[in-house]
């Protein structure tokens, strides 16, 4: 079993939860490499590449997802069904992520001992 799964379901900028989840993932990566990240539900909006939140006094944390590779976080998945449901299957994402269907995401999450859902 893999160590930890981070499931992130919040849209960015409305609250700080999505940004703080990113901080938690980066911090946890110092402790284990057996870590996966799942973007599901509104969480898929975090990956949009053309964000400009400075106008609403928020930090653009999407480019920081590129740090995942440097931190050896390699298991990154996005729910293709969530993208489709929101009509954004074809937008550019900030990083390379594996697209899985909702049932595939569910199955993959269950391969982890600890599941942290935000």
């Amino acid at each position, binding site marked *: 079993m893999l160590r930890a799964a981070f*499931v992130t379901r919040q849209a960015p900028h409305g609250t700080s*939860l999505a940004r703080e989840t990113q901080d938690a993932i980066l911090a946890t990566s110092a402790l284990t490499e057996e870590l996966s990240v799942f973007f599901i*539900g509104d969480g898929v909006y975090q990956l949009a590449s053309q964000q400009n939140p400075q106008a609403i006094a928020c930090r653009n944390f999407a480019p920081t997802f590129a740090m995942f590779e440097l931190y050896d976080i390699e298991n990154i998945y996005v729910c293709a069904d969530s993208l489709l449901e929101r009509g954004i299957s074809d937008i550019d994402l900030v990083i390379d992520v594996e697209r899985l269907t*909702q049932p595939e995401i*569910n199955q993959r999450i*269950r391969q982890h*001992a600890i*599941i942290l*859902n935000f």
Partner: protein
Amino acid sequence: MLHIIKSSPFSKSTFIDSIAYFDDGDAVIFIQDAVVITASQHKYAKILQDQMPKVSVYTLTEDLNARGLNCILGQQVSYPEFVELTVTHLQIQTWN
């Protein structure tokens, strides 16, 4: 897997979002504002009922009592029984 649900389905979509992640043999416990789900007949109670052959349903008694509500679906559990559920299930997912 034990799913822990905490918010009212009338104000947040958390409960509806979580359903797609329920598998056969999973357990679901409703705590905090989510106890409204099992406390009366409404559209979300119906949605839960459709899941009930697949999952065991629990609601935290203390949170029901605090709100003056009664459980009509699944089983009521106390805090110590809730703790036991977290121990007997290998995997836990809290839906924030």
